[in-house]
């Protein structure tokens, strides 16, 4: 990661809020130089030290594509990164809403593509899930592991599957809590309190969903439904309307 003499290396990030900010903050803290490009516009909350890039810098150590909510924006970003970066630069892409296999079909150098379980709030955990794409080069997978270890994370390598592991479980918990709230089973704060007291969940599913943001939760559920074609993954009406809780910071 230490090439170019730029501390831990140069990370180029494309994507959307609040993922870009979360990753930029973690990369800066780990000593990386960060350049970020938002699609669509955003990034008002970017941490100090992050350069907003109009063009993608070729001398990157690693590139992150952090879009979940728009497949079209994601495809454009991945293609732009794939075109601009030299072949050896690994491309780590948020894959909680779109499988790595789908994304691999959008770019020329699929061997550099590695899926990551990027969902708001999850970077606060001690582990990062990565899913190598079809035909991913060993070097790209190793680089992904090295990148997350530089951020202080353990690694879990999982198969490429819709929603990956934690985003799928978590977004379905958030969804079920919204079904229950919409059906007036209990008040929102009470649902969160019951889940924390009755099951020791670290956060209530409604407050967690608000922190992830309803748009990202919906993107994961939409991806699951698209992949499986099952009613099981339909979005709760309340979540479709914007969620049952205002945005919170966990």
């Amino acid at each position, binding site marked *: 990661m230490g090439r170019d003499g730029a501390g831990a290396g140069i990370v180029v990030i494309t994507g959307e809020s609040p993922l870009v900010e979360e990753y930029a903050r973690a990369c800066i803290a780990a000593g990386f130089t960060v350049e970020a490009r938002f699609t669509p516009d955003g990034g008002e909350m970017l941490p100090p030290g992050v350069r907003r890039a109009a063009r993608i810098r070729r001398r990157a150590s690693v590139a992150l594509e952090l879009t979940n909510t728009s497949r079209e924006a994601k495809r454009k970003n991945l293609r732009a990164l794939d075109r601009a970066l030299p072949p050896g630069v690994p491309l780590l892409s948020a894959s909680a809403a779109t499988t790595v296999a789908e994304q691999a079909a959008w770019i020329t150098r699929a061997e550099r593509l590695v899926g990551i*379980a990027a969902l708001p709030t*999850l970077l*606060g*955990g*001690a*582990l*990062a*899930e990565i899913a190598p794409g079809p035909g991913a080069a060993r070097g790209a997978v190793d680089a992904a592991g090295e990148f997350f270890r530089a951020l202080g994370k*353990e690694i*879990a390598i*999982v*198969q490429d*599957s819709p*929603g*990956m*592991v*934690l985003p*799928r*479980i*978590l977004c*379905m*918990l958030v*969804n*079920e*809590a919204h*079904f*229950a709230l919409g*059906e*007036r*089973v*209990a*008040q929102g704060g*009470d*649902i969160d*309190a*019951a*889940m924390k*007291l*009755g*099951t*020791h*969940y*670290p*956060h209530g*599913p409604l407050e967690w969903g608000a922190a992830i943001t309803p748009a990202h939760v919906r993107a994961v559920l939409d991806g699951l439904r698209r992949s499986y074609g*099952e*009613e*099981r993954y339909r979005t709760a009406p309340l979540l479709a309307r914007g969620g049952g809780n205002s945005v919170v910071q966990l």
Partner: protein
Amino acid sequence: MTTTVGIVGAGTMGAGIAQVAAQAGSDVLLHDESGQALARGMERIAAGLRTGRGETEGAEALARVHPCRAAGDLAAAGVVIEAAFEDLAVKREIFRALEGIVRPGTVLATNTSSLSITAIGALTRTPGAVVGMHFFNPAPRMKLVEIVRGSRTSDETMERARSLALDMGKTPILCADTPGFIVNRVARPFYGEALRLLGEGAAGVEEIDRIVRLEGGFRMGPFELMDLIGIDVNYAVTKSVYERFFHEPRFRPHPIQERMVEAGTLGRKTGRGFYRHG
């Protein structure tokens, strides 16, 4: 707390609730038709009080628990909490019998985790007095009590149940009488999606648990938790919620779990579940 609390059923949950009520200062009438079950329940309470409190305090609390084999002894209770077998016919029979024993105005609570409060109260003459008080296992340690309003439960009954839970040092959460109430419903995807991920080969048991713990900050992964709860118990709750929601696909049980129940690999209690124990 001065209300005399009657408990029907001296199993794990009945004994646990009895212990909590006695520790909160109530006289407890612990009823079970089986003398053996009653003796085991009293032993469990005594053991719980030995580990939980000072010797004198524990002895005083234990002295407040009165085992009774005759249901008629529950006449002195101001609140009765039923913690018998999870079977609607059994519970309905108990509640009808209780009506003939207790004084008017006695709150009749059920600790059911999966049955309808409305259905349990429907055959009684006083459905307004019937309420769900769903304690979590182990009752002495878990703070949550879901206070479940059946379609005919009165406001006064809800308030008395809530107040009793508070007196017991618990956190009461009010909820509607819907399948799984809050926790057993909202938690279903934690297990269901983990089982699907396993079935699809996305990751193994240990890897999924490690991800959920370390990436998500959960205290236990889904497979560790199923082993602790009992795979048969977890499967029964899933089936019950699935059936009561008329086969809503979100709650569909998974064949892996069914197969494990058939094989008798039920988790910690059998020494083998998703993990080997002991």
